[in-house]
């Protein structure tokens, strides 16, 4: 016979406390091991919704299912192809990062990237004309996430851009992401000058086809395996991708150099890819998207499945509430600036790359990447504490993505809306900073958190869903 009440009456009591310190002290006076939760009240007005959501009998098992699916999702790079084919993207439709937005409210970098994409597609001859047509509503704008894709920074994808296709055969999903343009003046940071457009044309004409040959000849590349290893090599998979980029290049290189293309093109493709320390980011992101996508749509689950920004709004989506976006004004990152740029030059948070944090890497794996503090600010203890704090707002630990310095503990994964609201600890995001003015490009990198109202709004919707 098992001991009733889990052995409550037969084991020496260890007590966790929440509330009045006096009672914890009274227990310590009796030499009882006590751990106090340091309770502080959640934002006013949330207590009713919290109680409803916590009482939802589906919550615990739904979140366990979300965690299981999120960590079981595979990510195999299977192809490289134009977005028109991959996503069925039609001429005149443009995908962008973050939650839905219209031109009037779009930030500088998103506007710049859209202008560049319109020029690339030949839908306007000058930036001014592109802007006019965009402002006139001549084109359709749609979030990448609505097509299962992700885009870094402005995240603008147009039909002729090439994308990676990444498969999760466990759940039968595919995700897509554009090819990384490198650093400096690039479309994803809102630059649209001639060199930007020329580079994009070269990527479509030369780089994409060579990468496609490489992927098709070497076979699927296991992106999850690279993420697992890069975390043990000092990357966190969002703002530091050095080891991951090298490992990816190692996988693709044999197929690239044997590709059917002029030697000079092959050489330039290899040089371009090898010189780009964020080469891997555009594969880590769709891998993370596949993980979070597998966890979507579980009734009762309070796990976040999307965090994304369009430079104006920050939006989240939650497993238990499906497609609905919960948005708030995007914060501006705090961090370090390139060259002469300063805080006044930075645009508010932008990009789908917070999908990495949503899937348990990036800022959540900061302890694995102490060197990142030289890039985004903070110090090494901060990096360690950032990951440790995120265990407090997530439902589990990733079995594959591990942090050596924490004793190979799995990264915190599965952001729980209820935990975020209860603790007030917002998800830690590492990010690049785009210039506020269209065409500027990257001005720095830093740390940012979502606006808290995304989570309180999601909580209200979850409570409504639980109550019905």
């Amino acid at each position: 016979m098992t001991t009733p009440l889990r052995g409550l009456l037969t084991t020496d009591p260890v007590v966790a406390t929440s509330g009045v310190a006096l009672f914890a002290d009274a227990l310590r006076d009796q030499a009882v091991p006590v751990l106090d939760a340091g309770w502080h009240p959640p934002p006013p007005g949330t207590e009713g919704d919290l109680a409803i959501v916590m009482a939802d009998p589906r919550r615990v098992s739904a979140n366990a299912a979300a965690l299981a699916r999120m960590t079981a999702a595979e990510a195999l790079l299977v192809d490289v192809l134009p977005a028109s084919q991959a996503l069925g993207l039609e001429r005149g439709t443009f995908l962008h990062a973050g939650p839905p937005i219209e031109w009037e409210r779009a930030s500088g970098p998103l506007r710049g990237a859209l202008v560049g994409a319109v020029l690339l597609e030949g839908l306007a001859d000058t930036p001014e004309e592109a802007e006019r047509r965009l402002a006139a509503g001549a084109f359709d704008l749609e979030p990448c996430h609505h097509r299962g894709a992700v885009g870094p920074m402005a995240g603008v994808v147009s039909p002729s851009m090439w994308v990676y296709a990444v498969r999760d055969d466990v759940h039968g999903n595919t995700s897509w992401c554009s090819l990384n343009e490198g650093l400096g003046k690039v479309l994803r940071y809102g630059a649209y000058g001639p060199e930007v457009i020329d580079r994009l044309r070269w990527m479509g004409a030369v780089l994409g086809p060579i990468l496609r040959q490489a992927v098709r000849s070497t076979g699927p590349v296991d992106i999850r395996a690279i993420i697992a290893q890069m975390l043990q090599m000092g990357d966190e998979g969002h703002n530091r991708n050095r080891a991951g980029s090298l490992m990816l290049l190692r996988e693709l290189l044999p197929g690239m150099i044997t590709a059917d293309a002029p030697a000079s093109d092959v050489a330039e493709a290899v040089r371009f890819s090898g010189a780009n320390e964020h080469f891997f980011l555009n594969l880590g992101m769709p891998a993370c998207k596949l993980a979070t996508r597998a966890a979507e749509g579980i009734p009762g689950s309070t796990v976040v499945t999307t965090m994304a920004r369009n430079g104006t709004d920050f939006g989240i989506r939650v497993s238990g509430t499906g497609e609905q976006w919960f948005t708030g004004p995007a914060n501006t990152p705090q961090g370090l600036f390139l060259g002469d740029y300063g805080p006044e030059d930075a645009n508010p948070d932008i990009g789908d790359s917070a999908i990495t944090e949503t899937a348990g890497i990036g800022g959540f794996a900061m302890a694995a990447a102490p060197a990142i503090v030289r890039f985004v600010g903070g110090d090494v203890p901060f990096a360690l504490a950032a990951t440790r704090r995120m265990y407090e707002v997530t439902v589990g630990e990733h079995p594959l993505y591990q942090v050596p310095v924490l004793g190979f503990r799995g990264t915190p994964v599965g952001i729980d809306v209820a935990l975020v609201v209860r603790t007030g600890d917002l998800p830690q995001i590492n990010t690049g900073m785009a210039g506020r003015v269209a065409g500027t490009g990257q001005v720095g990198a830093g740390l940012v958190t979502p606006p808290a109202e995304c989570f309180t709004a999601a909580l209200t919707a979850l409570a409504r869903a639980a109550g019905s």
Partner: protein
Amino acid sequence: MSVHVELRRGAYHDSVSLLQVSRAVAGAPGVEAAQVAMATELNVDVLRGMGFAVPEEAGPNDLLVALRAADDDGLAAGLAAVEDALAALSATASSTGADDEVPPATLGSAVRRSGAGLALVSVPGAHAVTETYDAIAAGASVMLFSDNVSVADEVALKDAAAAADVLVMGPDCGTALVGGVALGFADVVRPGPVGIVAASGTGAQQAMCLLDAAGVGVSHCLGVGGRDLSAAVGGRSTRQALRALAVDDATDWVLVVSKPPDPDVLAAMEREVEALGLRAHWAILGAGRPDLTAAVEQALAAEGVAVPDWPAVLVATDAPPRPADAPTTTTTGSLRGLFCGGTLAEEAVLVAGAVLGPVSSNLGHDPEHALGRGLRAAGHAVIDFGADELTRGRAHPMIDPTLRMERIAAEAADPTCGVLLLDLVLGHGAHPDPGPELAEAVRAARATARAAGRELPVVVSLCGTDADPQDRRRTEATLAEAGASVFLSNAAAARHAAGILGGAR
């Protein structure tokens, strides 16, 4: 011969770690050969060389677990060793204590990190439900001190707890003693054979202190919340507590303490006790039922324990108690009971009411004799200063006696106050040394009355033990010195106070 070959997709560990795993597994009893390795070309060759059939689809990012054992038991032992060794690879964090650098942010986290079997929730009522669900989900029983939890929430919480095989003690549970540890407001009593199930905080404290004075110790005191034996809650926690105590080696017999229960629920609990084969005694407050002291005396007698004279100090200046059948009283004025303990107040109403007739109170059972918002009545009255409406935004009067102190002074100046009946509850969680302060108030009250030409008798129901941090005996002496009569038995105190008024009907 039993063989097991398993491919774990994408489970990456470094080779040195896996060497340690392979060695640990190979050393498990009954295992003949074992290899746990990433399925690199080299490792696949090695495994095939060892005679294992490696699946064709194995790739370098997959973990291969290959075992050969003499029989199925050996294989099971080997597989268990694999799980242990792999778990140990990522478990070093906890052994280094590295996790301690960020404090837990939630109760669930605190439960999981400390391995706590019990969580104590004392957050404001509006947040208590959230905290309690969190603790239940983390696998801990909960002492829910918070009040202002709805009956519907209480029922749902208790059902969730039962499904998880944990206990919700509460809401509004002030007292518990689990495995010798006092939680909330609890007296220090000797360990012993009595398991207490209490739908009443101060009622449980009274029972424990009486048992302790009789030389009988307590194994556990499981609070269940004052509403547990109501029709709506249906004895959910009481049932769980009884079942746990029935198989507890430290518990010989059980005392169930409750505020007035629903009769059907009480009957169901009596049947439960019978079905469990438990020796149980009942200390159930209610009209026509024995008071708590009498109930404890009956239980002691039934268990063959001599009933002692309960500690009491009678002050000589008090008017002598009159026989209950005395026709009229010469003492003018009414009984004013000012209590911190809800059950003690309730018992005082019942005991004094039987002698004096109707007693108004703020206990909420008897609308005909309810005290209004001002808590004033011309006749006999008992006030529970621990009631919800008097603790909103304030600490419990056992910790913060301010409101009651003010009322003591007011009663002293009120010519209709004929006798003052007070309780004082000692133990963990209560005021660290409340005796001197209350003694001072008693002294001042008597002086105020005397200055107005009145003699104001003061009777204190002092609930505590000599082992309590505040020391019952010392506190008793301090109060007696100030001119109060002091009783361990709350019923005796109430009866004495009523007697002073001559039992006027």
